[in-house]
């Protein structure tokens, strides 16, 4: 008997039992179900939620691979700064990748293992299907944490994020906050020393801190926040040869992913464009403030305020947030007009937090979580506009 037939028989056997959702999750992973339409349209378009989510995962793979190489590269470059003189020759090496494999891959495995475990348990208890939302969340989480994040910490955060961020609202499609960012926020507030500062972004920097061969791993934002010189060129910043969370450093690859998402019509170009726009506007405002001499170099805000507006777009997690986080359709604004407003405010507030919060100069995830909460309000006013048009039309007709 073929695998197909075997699985079909097992499905019939498990039907109606507690284990049915768990079995179906594995079955539908291998085979698209044999379900047919009943009422309504007799034919259906080719896409389902799995396919949609799969596109997002594919778009993240370059960032993940790059992040793995970068984990090793930043480690060795911190020990031997001369490596930075010839980045391309020293970047795609097996030694770098090996560090990525031993440091980044476990993050991915823990994220998926724990997250899907929680999803399966909830599906079995509540009797709903295992839904696809975590496929993307599970990939996003390792990409937005520092490379040295302890695995147990990540596991605790994932449990928190999936349960509080998603399952309590009813699962995929019902949540208010982006689950990946909920996990990130939990890590940030629960273990702040592991999520910020100058040691966590480079593998092994924590262990060596205070010793003779201590290595430095300041992110660009950290340097700017302390009004220090930045040692990286704009090319390095754009291509991503800099310390930072695993997957967020390469603006180039993120833009490539954005292009893929927009082309496949999975990601909202409105949100992506408007987030960059909002950030650029805020950056320009700060640049003008510096240009007008309102803030001088003695101010603690000077470093980040004087950063050129376009540079803001390619440092920190802004690009990653704009492309992969803000566009989450469940937590973003749902109307097209609302998406413009939503994205713009995310960009705008991100840079504002970045500049005014020197202790942790990364405002993107806070800005997105904040706007997640306001997205339904934005939609409400957009939809009310449509309702008003309808009422206006009625008056004109009856008058």
């Amino acid at each position, binding site marked *: 008997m073929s695998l197909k037939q075997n699985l079909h028989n097992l499905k019939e056997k498990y039907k109606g039992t507690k284990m049915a959702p768990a079995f179906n999750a594995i079955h539908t992973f291998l085979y698209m179900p044999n379900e047919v339409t009943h009422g309504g*349209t007799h034919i259906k*378009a*080719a*896409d389902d939620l799995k396919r949609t989510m799969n596109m997002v995962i594919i778009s993240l793979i370059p960032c993940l691979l790059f992040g793995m190489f970068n984990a090793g590269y930043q480690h060795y470059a911190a020990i031997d700064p001369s490596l930075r003189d010839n980045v391309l020759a020293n970047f795609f090496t097996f030694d770098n990748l090996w560090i990525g494999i031993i440091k980044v891959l476990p993050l991915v495995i823990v994220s998926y293992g724990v997250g899907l475990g929680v999803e399966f348990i909830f599906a079995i208890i509540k009797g709903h299907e295992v839904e*696809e939302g975590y496929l993307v969340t599970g990939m996003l989480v390792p990409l937005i944490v520092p490379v040295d994040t302890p695995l147990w910490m990540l596991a605790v955060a994932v449990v928190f994020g999936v349960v509080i961020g998603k399952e309590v609202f009813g699962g995929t*499609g019902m949540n208010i906050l982006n689950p990946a960012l909920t996990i990130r926020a939990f890590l940030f507030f629960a273990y702040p020393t592991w999520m910020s500062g100058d040691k966590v972004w480079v593998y092994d920097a924590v262990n060596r801190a205070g010793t003779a061969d201590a290595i430095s791993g300041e992110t660009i934002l950290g340097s700017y926040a302390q009004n220090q010189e930045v040692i990286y060129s704009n090319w390095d910043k754009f291509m991503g040869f800099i310390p930072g969370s695993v997957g967020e450093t390469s603006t180039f690859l993120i833009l490539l992913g954005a292009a893929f998402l927009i082309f496949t019509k999975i990601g909202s170009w409105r949100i992506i464009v408007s987030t960059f726009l909002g950030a650029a506007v805020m950056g320009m405002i700060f640049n003008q403030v510096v240009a007008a001499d309102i803030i001088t170099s003695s101010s603690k805000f000077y470093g980040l305020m004087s950063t050129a507006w376009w540079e803001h777009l390619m440092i920190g997690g802004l690009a990653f947030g704009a492309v992969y986080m803000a566009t989450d*359709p469940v937590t973003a604004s749902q109307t097209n007009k609302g998406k413009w407003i939503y994205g713009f405010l995310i960009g705008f507030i991100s840079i504002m937090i970045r500049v005014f919060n020197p202790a942790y100069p990364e405002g993107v995830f806070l800005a997105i979580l904040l706007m997640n909460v306001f997205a339904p309000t934005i939609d409400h006013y957009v939809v009310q506009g449509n309702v008003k048009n309808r*009422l206006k039309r009625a008056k004109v007709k009856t008058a």
Partner: protein
Amino acid sequence: MSKDIRIKKGLDIKLVGVAEKTTTQSSLSSVYAIKPEDFHGITPKLIAREGAKVKAGEALFHSKSDERILFPSPVSGTITEVIRGERRKVLTVKIAADTQQDYKDFGVKDASKMSGEEVKNHLFTAGCWPFIKQRPYDVVANPNQAPKAIFISAYASAPLAADLDYTLAGKEVELQAAITAISKLTSGKVHISVGAKSNSPFEKLSGIELHKVSGPHPSGNVGTQIAKIDPINKGEVVWVVTPQDLVIMGELLLTGKFNATRVVALTGSRFEKPQYVTAIIGAQVSQFTSGNLNTDNTRIISGNVLSGTKIKETGFLRYYDNQITAIPEGDDYEFFGWNKPVFDKVSTTRAFTFSWLNPNKKYDLTTNTNGEHRAFVVTGAYEAVFPLDIYPMQLLKAFMYKDLDEMEALGGYEVAPEDFALTEFICVSKQPHQKIIREGLDLMRQELG
């Protein structure tokens, strides 16, 4: 003078099995069936009993709420069976047809000399009232409410739809008679929409407001046309008639006979020769499909693939339909179907789906859902195929949580289930949009009148 309606949002789903323009005269089938559920929202009260003889045009049942609304027998013959369901609900009335058809005579009428009230009464007695449907709620028209306008879509844009220019050719006289009559029922206009490039018999008629529509489906949906021409506001009613039913009404006026014959398109990949046949409403489908239809694991639909009704091989042509579609059932598993590139299915995204590369390719789609039912996740996709000035997802959600104020405010009066057929087709979460809309409209009708 014609006015142009251009639709940009929408989707043409090109399928294999377009009906070839030849019409076969089908012989009289032995059994006919009328299903009261075709007349949504009507509770039938039987007039004719099992075993009774009826003439074509004689009433089988009337609406419980309005005795004037009669539902006629399409043929003359003997009522063989009344199939009832739960709580004695009438499901089907079956009639064995006489070999020699006998029509009830309603008298020849000159519509131009009749008053609105006379036209109405004539349509009541001859059982033609059910052909007039109303918006809001998409049900048989309430004769006590005056419509602000009457809409007729003579342009079919649904997948594989019967070409109305072809099926109505030569029926100008009947159509004119019917138009003259129904225009007396409204103080407003009779709006007729034809395809921009078509050669429609309607173009020669008088007493109408002609519109030329172009663009992808759902440009031919009467709901789209109403929204563009004269949208429905709270408290307003419009009436809708299909052109094939106008022909029956016209013939009634001209000859005094209720002749429920229409030209029906046999479409879809499971027909060996997709073509047109003549058939009487309620006819057993096997009568004119046998020998032409591959019935092996086939879905037979009365109507089109987006909003038609699933019927059995031995099923019957439903009251308002002029199309029978047959497509393969898709009840098989597909290995890694969710992530491998697909070339044989239609999609509006480019998520490893390649129908965008080849917009003129014809597809042989099956009834597989291509995925499981999920909560709403993706946003912004419905808007791209939904030309009405309504937020489709917000309206669907309001219909699901049954907030009457929101249902009303977001456009509930303007929609019919078929307007949501395309959003249902592309829905990534495989939600039953048309069912949600139908149930919501029923609730609105019950609560708001």
